[in-house]
C-alpha cells in the first residue's frame, strides 16, 4: 500500500499539469460546498444556543384574511402565559434602542425590551450580577442587564459594573447583570442590553388592541409543539369571544422556535445548497474525464504490469490510491477556499440571516469536506480504473501504439459532457431567473424618488418629551423650519414610520356615514404621521385635493390624506375627497372623524416586492409623536457639511438630543434588497463556476480527442478533406453531445426551477427569454471550448500524421 502511495505521488509529480488542474477543480467544488455547508450548519442544523432548545417555541397571532406571524398584545400575552398548561414559561419582547450617556460621548445602543421571564425561558444564568425579577418587571424598575459584547465594548469589561448607574436616554438605570458571551435575543440582529418592558411602554402594555410584542416560551417537559399550539389556539378563541373589540378574527398559535428563526431563509439556502452540490458534481465529472484521459495514456504501462502478473484488483487499487491522493489535496485547498469564502459570506451576507456571524469551519465541516472529496473522487475514479485495468496486452504493447481508445471510453466521455452541460444549464437557468427577478425588483418604482434624499431617525428622549405632545410638536416644527433653510436642502419634511425603515404601523378605522361593523371588525390600514413638505421632499405625487398646510394645526379641523390603494379598496375607486374616516384610538375621546382632503400616489413601504397597501396620513400637529424620520431632499448626491449643519440645528433647539448619522434613503432600500442580491450573487457565482468547469471539460475532451485522432485527421486530409471540413466535423460531433446535454438540462430546469418560485419576483419560473439566453450563452461557451482544440485538428500535417520517413 505504501509502495502504491509513493508511486501515486511520483506519478502526480511527473504530471504536474494534470495534478494541478485536477486538484484545483476539486478544490473549487469542495470549497464551495464546505463554505455553504458551514452556513447550513450554523443557520439550519446547529441547535439554538440555549439548554434543551427543542422545548423552545414562538407564539404568533394570525388575523383572518391577513398574513401569518402577527405580533400580539401585552394583555393577550398575560392571558396565554397564565392559562396555558403546556407552556412552562413565556416571555414577550420588542426591539428597543437607547442612547447611552450624553453630549459628544453619547452612543446609540440596540437591545430588547422584555419581560423578566426571558431568563427562565432561555435558561442561562448571568455571568455577573443578576437578572431582573417579576417585581421589577411589574413596577417598571429602571434596571438594565448588559450583554457580554456591550460590557466589553462600552465598559471595558469593568468587573465593578454591577450596581453602577448609567444614563440611558437621559434617565438613570442601574446595571444589575452581565450575560455570558454569545447570549443575545433576538439571535440575529445587534443586541446589547435587556430592559424591563413595562416601564418603557407603560400605556401600550395596557391596551389589548396594541399588537407589538413577540412571544417566546418553553414547553413543559413532555409537552409537544402541536399540543401547545392547539391549547394556545383554544385560549385565543376564548379571548376572541371575551374581547371582541380587539380580538375579532385574531387567533394565536405556536411553532418551534428553531423553525421560526430559519423558516424564512430555508428555501433560499436549500436552493443554494442544491446549486453547490451541482457544482461539485460538475467538478467531479471533470476530474473523471481527466482520469479517463490519463488512464488511456497509461494503457501501455498497465499492460506491462498485467503482463508481469499484476492482478486486476491490484491495478484498480493503485489507480484509486492516486484518486484518493488527489481528493485529499483537493479537500485541503477546498477548505482554504471555503475559509476565504466564509469571510466573504459574512461580509456580503444579508443581516436578516440568523446566526450569520456564527459561521465557521469546524470539525464537522472538515470531516464532511474530506468525506465528500474522497467519496466523490472514488466514485468517479472507479470507472476509469475498471475500464483500463483489463487491457489487451498484445495490442497495447505493440510498438508505437498510442493506446487504442475503445468506443466505451468515448461513450463515457460523452456521457460526462452531457451530464456537465445539463447540470450547468440547470444552474444557469436558476441564476438567470434570480438575476431577472433582482433586476425587476431594482426597477420597481417605490412610488417616490429615493435619490438625493437623506433621512434622520430622530427619537426625542423619553425623560424630557414623553407624554408632552405640545413639546414634541414645538420641537419638530422649529426643527422643520430650521432644516428647510439649510444650504443645499430643497425640501424638508418628516414621517413616522418611514418607508423601508423596517418599521410599520397599522391602525383600524371605519368610514363615517356607513354602518359601524363593530370595532372588532374595523378594517386596518397603514397609519403614517407626516410633517412639513414630506410629499414634496419624497416626490410623492398629489393626485387630487390638497396637501397638508398651515390650516391643519392642532386646533384646526381634523384631516387626513390617503393613497390610491386606500381609495380603491375602501371607496371602490370613487371620489373620496370630503369623506370622513374615524381612526380607532386607545382613548375614545380621540375618535373624531377625519376629513379626507387629498389623495396621493401609492408607495411601497416594507419591500419593493410587496405591492402598495392602503395608507392614510395624518398631519403631525394633529398626531404628534416622540419619534420622527426627518427627510431632506438635497440639491446634489453628496452634500459636504450637511450632517454637521443638521446636527447643529437640532442641538440649537436641544443640546441633549442624540443625533444619529444621516442615511441616504437609497441605502435603506438597498438593505431590503440584500437577501435577493445575496441569493443572486451566490447562484450567479456558482453558475459561472459550473459553466467554466463544463467548458473546461468540453475543451479537455475535444483536445484529447484531437490528439487521439491525429492520424485519422491526417488520413482524411490525405483523402481530400479541407481544413474547414475538419473543423466542421469536430464542432458537429461536439455539438451533437452538447445538444443532448442542453436538452436534458432544459427539461430539468423547467421541472426544477418551479421550486424556486418563492424567490422570484415579476418573472415566471418558465421565462422564455431567460431559457433562450442561457441556451445561447452555454452554446457559445461550448463553441469556444470546442473551437480552440479543434483548431489544432485544422493544423494537422498529413505527412506528419501519417509518419512518413
Amino acid at each position, binding site marked *: 500500500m505504501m509502495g502504491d502511495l509513493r508511486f501515486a505521488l511520483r506519478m502526480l509529480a511527473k504530471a504536474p499539469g494534470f495534478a494541478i488542474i485536477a486538484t484545483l477543480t476539486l478544490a473549487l467544488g469542495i470549497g464551495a460546498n464546505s463554505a455553504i455547508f458551514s452556513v447550513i450548519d450554523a443557520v439550519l442544523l446547529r441547535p439554538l444556543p440555549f439548554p434543551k432548545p427543542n422545548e423552545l417555541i414562538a407564539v404568533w397571532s394570525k388575523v383572518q384574511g391577513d398574513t401569518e406571524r402577527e405580533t400580539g398584545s401585552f394583555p393577550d400575552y398575560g392571558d396565554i402565559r397564565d392559562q396555558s398548561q403546556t407552556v412552562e414559561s413565556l416571555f414577550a419582547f420588542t426591539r428597543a434602542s437607547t442612547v447611552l450617556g450624553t453630549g459628544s460621548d453619547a452612543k446609540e445602543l440596540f437591545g430588547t425590551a422584555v419581560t423578566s421571564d426571558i431568563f427562565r425561558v432561555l435558561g442561562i444564568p448571568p455571568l455577573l450580577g443578576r437578572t431582573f425579577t417579576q417585581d421589577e418587571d411589574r413596577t417598571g424598575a429602571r434596571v438594565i442587564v448588559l450583554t457580554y459584547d456591550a460590557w466589553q465594548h462600552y465598559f471595558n469589561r469593568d468587573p465593578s459594573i454591577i450596581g453602577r448607574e448609567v444614563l440611558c436616554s437621559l434617565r438613570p438605570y442601574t446595571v444589575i447583570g452581565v450575560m455570558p458571551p454569545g447570549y443575545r435575543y433576538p439571535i440575529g440582529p445587534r443586541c446589547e442590553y435587556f430592559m424591563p418592558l413595562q416601564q418603557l411602554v407603560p400605556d401600550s402594555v395596557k391596551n389589548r388592541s396594541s399588537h407589538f410584542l413577540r412571544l417566546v416560551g418553553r414547553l413543559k417537559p413532555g409537552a409537544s409543539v402541536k399540543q401547545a399550539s392547539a391549547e394556545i389556539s383554544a385560549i385565543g378563541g376564548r379571548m376572541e369571544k371575551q374581547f371582541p373589540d380587539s380580538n375579532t378574527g385574531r387567533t394565536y398559535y405556536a411553532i418551534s422556535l428553531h423553525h421560526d428563526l430559519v423558516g424564512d431563509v430555508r428555501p433560499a439556502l436549500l436552493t443554494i445548497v442544491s446549486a453547490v452540490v451541482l457544482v461539485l458534481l460538475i467538478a467531479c465529472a471533470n476530474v473523471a474525464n481527466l482520469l479517463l484521459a490519463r488512464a488511456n495514456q497509461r494503457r501501455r504501462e498497465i499492460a506491462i504490469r498485467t503482463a508481469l502478473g499484476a492482478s486486476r484488483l491490484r491495478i484498480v487499487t493503485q489507480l484509486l490510491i492516486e484518486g484518493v491522493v488527489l481528493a485529499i489535496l483537493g479537500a485541503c485547498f477546498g477548505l482554504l477556499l471555503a475559509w476565504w469564502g466564509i469571510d466573504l459570506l459574512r461580509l456580503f451576507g444579508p443581516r436578516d440571516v440568523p446566526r450569520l456571524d456564527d459561521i465557521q469551519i469546524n470539525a464537522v465541516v472538515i470531516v464532511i469536506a474530506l468525506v465528500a472529496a474522497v467519496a466523490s473522487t472514488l466514485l468517479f475514479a472507479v470507472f476509469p480504473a475498471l475500464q483500463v485495468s483489463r487491457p489487451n496486452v498484445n495490442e497495447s504493447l505493440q510498438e508505437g501504439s498510442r493506446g487504442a481508445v475503445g*468506443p466505451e471510453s468515448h461513450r463515457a466521455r460523452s456521457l460526462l459532457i452531457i451530464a456537465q452541460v445539463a447540470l450547468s444549464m440547470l444552474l444557469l437557468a436558476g441564476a438567470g431567473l434570480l438575476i431577472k427577478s433582482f433586476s425587476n425588483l431594482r426597477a420597481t418604482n417605490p412610488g417616490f424618488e429615493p435619490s438625493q434624499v437623506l433621512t434622520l431617525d430622530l427619537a426625542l428622549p423619553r425623560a424630557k418629551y414623553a407624554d408632552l405632545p405640545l413639546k414634541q410638536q414645538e420641537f419638530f416644527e422649529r426643527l422643520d423650519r430650521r432644516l428647510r433653510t439649510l444650504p443645499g436642502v430643497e425640501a424638508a419634511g418628516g414621517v413616522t414610520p418611514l418607508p423601508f425603515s423596517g418599521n410599520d404601523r397599522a391602525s383600524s378605522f371605519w368610514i363615517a356615514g356607513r354602518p359601524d361593523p363593530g370595532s372588532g371588525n374595523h378594517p386596518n390600514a397603514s397609519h403614517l404621521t407626516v410633517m412639513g413638505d414630506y410629499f414634496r421632499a419624497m416626490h410623492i405625487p398629489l393626485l387630487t385635493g390638497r396637501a397638508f398646510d398651515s390650516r391643519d394645526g392642532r386646533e384646526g379641523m381634523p384631516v387626513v390624506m390617503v393613497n390610491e390603494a386606500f381609495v380603491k379598496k375602501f371607496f371602490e375607486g370613487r371620489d373620496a375627497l370630503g369623506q370622513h374616516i374615524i381612526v380607532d384610538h386607545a382613548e375614545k375621546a380621540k375618535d373624531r372623524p377625519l376629513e379626507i382632503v387629498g389623495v396621493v400616489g401609492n408607495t411601497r413601504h416594507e419591500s419593493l416586492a410587496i405591492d402598495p397597501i392602503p395608507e392614510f396620513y395624518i398631519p403631525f400637529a394633529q398626531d404628534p409623536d416622540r419619534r420622527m424620520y426627518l427627510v431632506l431632499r438635497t440639491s446634489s448626491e453628496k452634500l459636504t457639511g450637511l450632517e454637521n449643519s443638521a446636527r447643529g440645528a437640532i442641538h440649537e433647539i436641544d443640546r441633549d438630543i442624540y443625533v444619529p448619522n444621516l442615511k441616504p434613503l437609497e441605502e435603506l432600500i438597498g438593505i431590503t434588497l440584500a437577501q435577493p442580491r445575496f441569493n443572486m450573487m451566490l447562484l450567479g457565482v456558482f453558475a459561472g463556476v459550473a459553466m467554466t468547469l463544463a467548458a473546461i471539460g468540453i475543451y479537455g475532451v475535444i483536445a484529447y480527442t484531437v490528439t487521439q485522432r491525429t*492520424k*485519422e485527421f*491526417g*488520413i*482524411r*486530409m*490525405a*483523402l*481530400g*478533406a*479541407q481544413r474547414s*471540413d475538419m473543423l466542421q466535423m469536430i464542432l458537429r460531433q461536439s455539438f451533437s453531445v452538447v445538444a443532448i446535454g442542453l436538452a436534458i438540462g432544459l427539461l430539468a430546469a423547467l421541472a426544477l426551477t418551479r421550486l424556486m418560485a418563492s424567490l422570484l419576483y415579476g418573472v415566471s419560473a418558465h421565462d422564455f427569454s431567460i431559457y433562450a439566453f442561457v441556451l445561447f450563452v452555454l452554446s457559445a461557451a461550448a463553441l469556444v471550448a470546442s473551437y480552440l482544440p479543434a483548431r489544432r485538428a485544422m493544423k494537422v*500535417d*498529413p*505527412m506528419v500524421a*501519417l509518419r*512518413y*520517413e
Partner: protein
Amino acid sequence: MIRLHNIERSYPLGRGQMFYVLRDIDLDIAAGDFVSVMGPSGAGKSTLLHILGMHDHGWTGEYFFDETAVHLLKAKERATLRNEQVGFVFQQYHLLDDLTVYENLDIPLSYRHYSKGERAALVADALDRFQIVGKKDLYPRQLSGGQQQLVGVARAIIASPKLLLADEPTGNLHSSQGEEIMELFRRLNEEGVTIVQVTHSEKNASYGKRIIQLRDGWIV
C-alpha cells in the same frame, strides 16, 4: 503530365545549416506512365511522393501538373487540384477504424461535392469492381491485410483521379496478396491511370514501365 524542375526539399538543422532530403530533382512523367521510385531508406522516396501528391508545401523549384504551375498555387488551390486529380494508397492502408468498408469508400467523395445519389452509385460501382460487395458492412479490423489494401486502392481511385500515388502498397502484405494488388495496379494503368509507386521490391517495380532510383536525395 507532370514536370518537376530543380525541386529541393530541406529541413533546418540549426546554426544556419540545412539538411537536404531532395536535391535538384528534374523529372517528367507522361500521362499513362507507371513509374516505380526505388532507393534505400532515407533516400527521399516518400518525400517525393508527398510533393507529387501536393501534401508537402515546403519545397522549392517548379512543379507543373498538366499545364498548371503548382509552385505558384496557394494552399487551397493545391488542395482543390489534388482532390480532383490525385489518389493515394498507403503502406499502412490507413483505413478509418470506426467506419465500415462502405463508409471508408464514401469519404473521399464526401470531400468532393458529389451528390448523395452520385456517391452511392460510385461506391456501389467500386464495391462491384473490386468484388468486395459482401464486405461493405465490415469494419477494417474484420478484414485481412490484403482485403484492407484492396479497399485502400478502391478508395484511392473512387473519385477517378488521373494520378495514383502508392507508398509501399504491398509492404505489409504477404507475397500472394502483394501480387494481387500489383496486378490490380497494372490493370488500372492499362485503363489509363498514371501511377507512381514507391517500393523496395524489384519484383513490384517490374510491374511499372520505368524505374527511378533515388539516393541521398538525388536521382541517380
